[in-house]
């Protein structure tokens, strides 16, 4: 019970902390009104832009924004730190200094470095005071190396801390007694599920213990991040190629590094095949092991989660796009029903994708540690 009470407390504190950041609701200037990051949406083009904006990572945490009666743009959320490596060294500042400008017109000067934000990327101006465009591409600015704590990085850190907290308290409980209490009772069956249904049958009785930790981490990390993506906070972490690529590379490194003689033998010099075919097979097998397996892992997770987000948001947008033909009540009702059921399916997909990623990782690791049996 204690943990449940603690987590309720924690969530309440978190909610209050998130809501009270009004300081960022800045007096953003009127010329930003044409920027579509919220506000009144009634055309298909605007809906598309809004969805694409959501799918991308961003430098600030924007919960919602609207245009008030005076025509001012109000943003609710909080800024996140920007850390960039420029020609003048590493610069750190809060993203609020860009004043929600995303089209490269607001220049932030740090020392002798001029920075602008353009479509979610930070550019450094090489010469002059403003960015010059040719066909919407900046000509006198280049992208900087960006180490910012963006929204996705924040999501990753948040889930990392959450998992650390849950599982370290679960581990502490097992030292005292055999049965966990409170929230630990929710986690225990999942831990046993990953161990007995994913790790053990796919990796084999002899080696599974070594890899269960990794598989468990990946499973819970992806699952919680997927679920976080379904909350109105607007995270889309597992729908970022960088995140899924990183996870796939972890799996690649683990199964490549733990591959035994039997595994490499089957890749590089396939036994039982005519000699002339062996080099050809080696090329195919190498491509499969080093490129195709991790690529399929990363693209599957990325595409599923991104597609899910796009579908949910498109169905919500029915409210605006079909308002003319169905009337306000009809369009809202249709959108509510459809998006409700799709969100339920997305809850299932969130689990399924975590399961499939873990399962395939276990399968690939199992292939590389399998003993010769002939």
């Amino acid at each position, binding site marked *: 019970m204690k943990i449940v009470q603690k987590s309720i407390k924690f969530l309440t504190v978190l909610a209050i902390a998130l809501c009270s950041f009004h300081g960022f609701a800045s007096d953003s200037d009127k010329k930003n009104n044409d920027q579509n990051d919220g506000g009144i949406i009634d055309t298909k083009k605007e809906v598309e832009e809004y969805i694409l904006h959501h799918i991308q990572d961003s430098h600030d945490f924007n919960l919602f924004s609207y245009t008030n009666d005076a025509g001012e743009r109000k943003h609710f959320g909080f800024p996140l730190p920007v850390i960039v490596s420029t020609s003048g060294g590493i610069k750190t500042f809060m993203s609020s200094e860009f004043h929600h400008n995303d089209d490269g017109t607001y220049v932030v000067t740090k020392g002798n470095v001029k920075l602008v934000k353009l479509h979610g990327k930070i550019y450094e101006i090489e010469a002059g005071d403003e960015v010059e465009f040719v066909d919407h591409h900046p000509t006198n600015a280049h992208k900087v190396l960006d180490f910012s704590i963006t929204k996705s990085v924040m999501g990753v850190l948040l889930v990392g801390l959450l998992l650390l907290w849950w599982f370290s308290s679960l581990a502490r409980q097992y030292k005292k007694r055999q049965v966990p209490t409170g929230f630990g009772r929710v986690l225990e069956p999942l831990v046993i599920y990953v161990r007995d249904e994913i790790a053990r*049958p796919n990796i084999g009785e002899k080696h599974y213990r070594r890899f269960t930790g990794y598989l468990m981490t990946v499973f819970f990390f992806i699952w919680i991040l997927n679920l976080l993506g379904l909350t109105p906070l607007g995270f889309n972490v597992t729908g970022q190629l960088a995140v899924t690529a990183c996870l796939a590379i972890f799996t690649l490194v683990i199964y490549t590094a733990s591959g035994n003689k039997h595994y490499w033998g089957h890749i590089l010099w396939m036994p039982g095949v005519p000699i002339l075919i062996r080099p050809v097979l080696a090329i195919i097998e190498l491509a499969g092991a080093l490129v195709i397996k991790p*690529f*399929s*892992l990363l*693209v*599957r997770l990325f*595409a*599923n989660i991104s597609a899910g987000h796009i579908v949910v948001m498109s169905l919500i947008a029915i409210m605006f796009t079909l308002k003319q033909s169905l009337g306000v009540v009809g369009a809202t009702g249709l959108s509510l029903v459809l998006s409700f059921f799709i969100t339920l399916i997305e809850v299932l997909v969130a689990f*399924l994708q975590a*399961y*499939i990623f873990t*399962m*395939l990782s276990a*399968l690939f690791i199992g292939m590389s540690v399998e003993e010769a049996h002939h």
Partner: protein
Amino acid sequence: MYNLIGAGLIVIGAGIGLGQIGGKAMEGIARQPEATGKIQTAMIIIAALLEGLAFGALFLGK
């Protein structure tokens, strides 16, 4: 325009494949209900591999 046609073709192919996998798994489960767990696991793995292929193609064609 052409990439939309291509996306349609990919989805048709993936749909046929998933239908085959799901249908055969159903048949297998109906014949041997005690093997449900194993069949489901294998079905999900193969469906995931197929899905990876389809998504890869969609992603490259985008």
